[in-house]
């Protein structure tokens, strides 16, 4: 069982790391958290029921490790100036204006309160259902809805100052 999880874990590791980046807000801690979560998953592979859902299981481990073990240490440790360097993000679209807007949106999401940020990421980026996100975060579905509603209001307000090309794109 551990070997099976190991191979699948390697496949989902980039997504796990990205979630850890969202949780921690910086690459130092994301590296540590992702590696810790991965190791913890391997150690506890006997607890995984198998089948689909390894990603959600490992995401939940990362969430738990962050909340219970690493977050307070990261806050106490502090750090120097850190900044997202937009030139280091690969371009995602061919037109520069959409690139700029996408990066602004990413920044706005990363600046949301922690609870909203992780919920937005799990539902709107990873594509989990409300139920799945609620299981990962160990909260009721109603709380998922509250967080998403609050995040939507904030993002709509903040992104409204951007060029028309963004406001015209809005879908759901």
């Amino acid at each position, binding site marked *: 069982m551990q070997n099976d999880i190991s191979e699948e874990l390697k496949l989902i*590791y980039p997504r796990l790391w990205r979630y850890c980046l969202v949780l921690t807000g910086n690459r130092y801690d994301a590296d540590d958290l992702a590696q810790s979560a991965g190791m913890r998953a391997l150690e506890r592979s006997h607890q995984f029921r198998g089948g689909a859902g390894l990603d959600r299981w490992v995401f939940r481990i990362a969430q738990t490790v962050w909340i219970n073990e690493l977050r307070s240490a990261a806050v106490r*440790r502090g750090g120097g*100036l850190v900044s997202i360097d*937009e*030139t280091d993000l690969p371009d995602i679209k061919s037109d520069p204006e959409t690139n700029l807007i996408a990066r602004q949106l990413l920044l706005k999401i990363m600046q949301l309160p922690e609870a909203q940020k992780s919920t937005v990421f799990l539902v709107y980026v990873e594509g989990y259902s409300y139920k799945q996100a609620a299981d990962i975060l160990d909260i009721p579905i109603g709380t998922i809805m509250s967080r*998403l509603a609050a995040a939507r209001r904030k993002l709509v307000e903040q992104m409204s100052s951007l060029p028309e090309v963004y406001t015209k*794109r809005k879908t759901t």
Partner: protein
Amino acid sequence: MSNTEHYSDEVLTGFLDGELDRLRMTAIKKALVKNEELKLKLEHLRIDRELMGDAFAPLLDMAPDMGTKPVSVSSRNDMRNRRFSTGWIAAVIMLPVLFAGLFYYSGLQIKQDKWYDYVAAYQALYVTNTLSNVSHTRQSEVLELQRVAKMLGRSFDITALKGMKELAYKRSQILGFQGKPLAQLTFLSTLGNPVALCLIRSNQTGDTIKLSTLENMASARWSKNGYEFLLIGGVDQDLISRAATHFKASL
């Protein structure tokens, strides 16, 4: 009866995400046909989910390989053993509040007390390639500056920023120091040296430009109209002095 008060933002969010039961989805769709107030309420919740996915997609390419060596909790807490590299630092995410603390550079421990010490240490990581490929349209430059200006609480004259022919203006961004926004405006000198003009709200007074060396880089500091300024980069103290005089007069 369709009354927007029956549909909270949470319920409307569930509607937009397709997460409500069929009965409520149908009821809200019917209500939207004639209820303008409900339509408006929905519009204030609409976001671009596709763009969100696109925005986060590039982060997957930044993920390291999954390590096989266990990481102990105690070694995580010991940042003294970490080494920095420019590419690694350049990929971290901005925190809304800056923590005070020790900043490690190339294995040496340097204690930072002042905001400009932090800026200098950060600027020391910049190389020509950090900025050489930065290229914006005039419109996006202006938008970026407006955003920074709004968060900092003061405007910038882009003509003044482009007024030194030896310094090519590249971009602006907002950083943070102890809860205060700190603007960073970056340039590339004709010799390829990254130069930064940073400013932060301050009660400091002092009209004269102070020249010095920070992190082995030429630097100039001054205060004006409720802000402290730092210009830093390269080793040409004469260029920094002339540029400081220009920016102090024109910004």
